[in-house]
């Protein structure tokens, strides 16, 4: 302070709008020699100070700056922010590889896509930090990104595994269903001779099932499921065809008629004391009645399409009706034979009626040469309509019967294999295509 002179140019307070002359005076005071002199003296004091302390001040500012920079640059390194997260990267990669090995892209495609995308983002961020100068690197967001990618990859793997197991379970179920349907189709196919179309269909279902198993083995579960379901549908169609064909064996009115025919034959045998033959097609049995009692029962083979009643020649069905032995053939091509009077008048009348209705093609006759002969007992239906029993049995039967012996051939008694087939498979195949 110079002799206590105030450094303010004037005592007039600035900002007083009402005292504008005073303000003018105050501004003028700022340029007064007194004020300028005082300021000059003060500034020369500061210059003296700077001149005296300049190197010390410079050193101080330099050191502070250096320390600040050093702290700013070293701190991220010391704190580990600049250290590349190699371990995290490796773990994320491993997780992604695991998900890929689990075929997550197939079984959980959306989640896997997310994981792949997250990994790419993380790797891009990693590379971005990698190319920076060491002190400026900060891998913390990269660590978070890698952790997120790893998390998503693990989730993709888990969901992929779950999806694969679900698909496998569905395929397994379809395969089991296909196996069951094909086994059922095969069973009905063995119970009766299937027509060419149905037989081909059954074989196609077996081929489709084998194909489904091969596809399943290579891990393509949805396709295996599709093929197995196709096999099951084909086999179901076979069963339905077969059951439809055999359904008449469970038809109450027809079964009652057959039973009535059997009873009448037995009654005739009892009342006349004579010998009669009853053939039950679906039971594969030939019973010999004498005096109303069964005296012999032989295992018999039928025409290979005996699920049907005989209608015309070449249909390979054993006829159903009341017949008689017309003559005995001791020297038959099938060892020995007993010729029957098929077609009888009833068969002819029915044939004529069906022909009139156009149910039988032109040029086809009712057939004939139906016999009970030897070379049978094969355990399957193989004749073209005859009843075949073993040679030993035909020898025995030859002794017991003669020309004129009544032979009643019926579908069955409602307890045979066709009736059973309809009972067992009818419910499961009804309603299917």
């Amino acid at each position, binding site marked *: 302070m110079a002799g206590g002179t105030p450094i303010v140019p004037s005592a007039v307070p600035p900002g007083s709008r009402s005292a504008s002359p005073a303000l003018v005076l105050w501004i003028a005071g700022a340029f007064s020699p007194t004020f300028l002199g005082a300021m000059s003296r003060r500034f020369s004091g500061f210059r003296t100070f700077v001149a005296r302390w300049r190197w010390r001040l410079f050193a101080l500012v330099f050191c502070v700056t250096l320390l600040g920079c050093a702290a700013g640059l070293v701190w991220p390194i010391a704190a580990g922010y600049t250290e590349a997260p190699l371990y995290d990267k490796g773990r994320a990669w491993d997780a992604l590889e695991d998900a*890929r090995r689990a075929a997550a892209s197939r079984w959980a495609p959306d989640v896997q896509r997310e994981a*792949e995308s997250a*990994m*790419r983002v993380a*790797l*891009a961020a*990693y*590379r*971005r930090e990698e*190319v920076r100068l060491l002190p400026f690197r900060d891998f913390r967001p990269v660590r978070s990104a890698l952790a997120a990618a790893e998390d998503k990859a693990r989730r993709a793997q888990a969901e992929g595994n779950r999806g694969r197991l679900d698909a496998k379970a569905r395929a397994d179920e379809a395969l089991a269903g296909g196996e069951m349907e094909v086994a059922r189709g095969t069973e009905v196919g063995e119970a009766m*001779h*299937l027509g*060419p*179309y149905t*037989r*081909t*269909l*059954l*074989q*196609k279902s*077996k*081929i*489709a099932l*084998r*194909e489904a198993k*091969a*596809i399943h083995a*290579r891990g393509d579960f949805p396709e295996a499921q599709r093929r197995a379901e196709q096999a099951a549908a084909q086999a179901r169609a076979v069963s339905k065809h077969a059951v439809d064909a055999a359904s008449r064996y469970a038809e109450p009115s027809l079964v009652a008629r057959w039973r009535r025919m059997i009873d009448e034959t037995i009654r005739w045998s009892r009342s006349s004391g004579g010998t009669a033959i009853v053939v039950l097609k679906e039971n594969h049995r030939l019973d010999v009645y004498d005096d109303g009692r069964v005296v012999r029962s032989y295992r018999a083979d039928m025409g*290979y399409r005996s699920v049907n009643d005989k209608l015309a020649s070449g249909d*390979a069905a054993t006829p159903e009706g009341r017949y008689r032995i017309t003559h005995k053939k001791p020297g038959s091509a*099938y060892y020995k034979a007993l010729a029957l009077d098929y077609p009888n008048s009833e068969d002819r009348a029915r044939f004529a009626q069906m022909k009139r209705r156009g149910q039988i093609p032109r040029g086809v006759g009712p057939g004939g040469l139906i016999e009970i002969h030897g*070379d049978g007992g*094969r355990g*399957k*239906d*193989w*004749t*073209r309509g005859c009843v075949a029993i073993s040679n030993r049995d035909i020898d025995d039967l030859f002794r017991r019967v003669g020309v004129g012996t009544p032979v009643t051939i019926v579908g069955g008694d409602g307890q045979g294999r066709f009736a059973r087939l309809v009972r067992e498979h009818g419910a499961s195949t009804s309603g299917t295509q």
Partner: protein
Amino acid sequence: MRKMMAVLSLVFGLVLVAGCSKPPQQAIDSANASIDAAKQAGAADYAPDSLRAVDDAKAALDAELKVQQDKFRSYKKSDELAADVKAKADKAAADAKANMEQAKNDATAAIGNVTTALADAKAALDKAPKGKGTAADIEAMKADLAAAEASLNDANAALSSGNYKDAKAKADAAASTIQNVMSQIQAAIDAKAGKK
């Protein structure tokens, strides 16, 4: 002053050169073309692991390009990565072609074998003992062979459409049916021979 100007010009020139450095577009285009070729060669089906390696390499290249665009634009590493992508894509294409060729050969061989077996079975069936007792069996076997033939036709269709794995599966499945029929024919022939 003149020296200072020279140094400044040099620095400016270097910055300009670095700033104007361009991505290795030719190498990238070449890599992309190789990736397309690998995909067209069926790498997704026949060389999925190789194609995955291509995807990873491509991701690394994309990341590098992105980094360099934002930075000093040094594309040396990008060039190397593009070359790596191309090499891997070429390998994927080669693997796919090799694997597809193998699958095609396998399917063709299987179909060839089944075709021969089917012809043999038909011939054997024609020569099989015929008569009243065998009519049903022959009819059944013919039906079985018809199913096998249908499967063989499907296999040929699959082969024509390039679906080699399915073609082989269908042919193999049909082979079993034909083998079964052949066994039955042989059993019938043996039975007849035994009877004689």
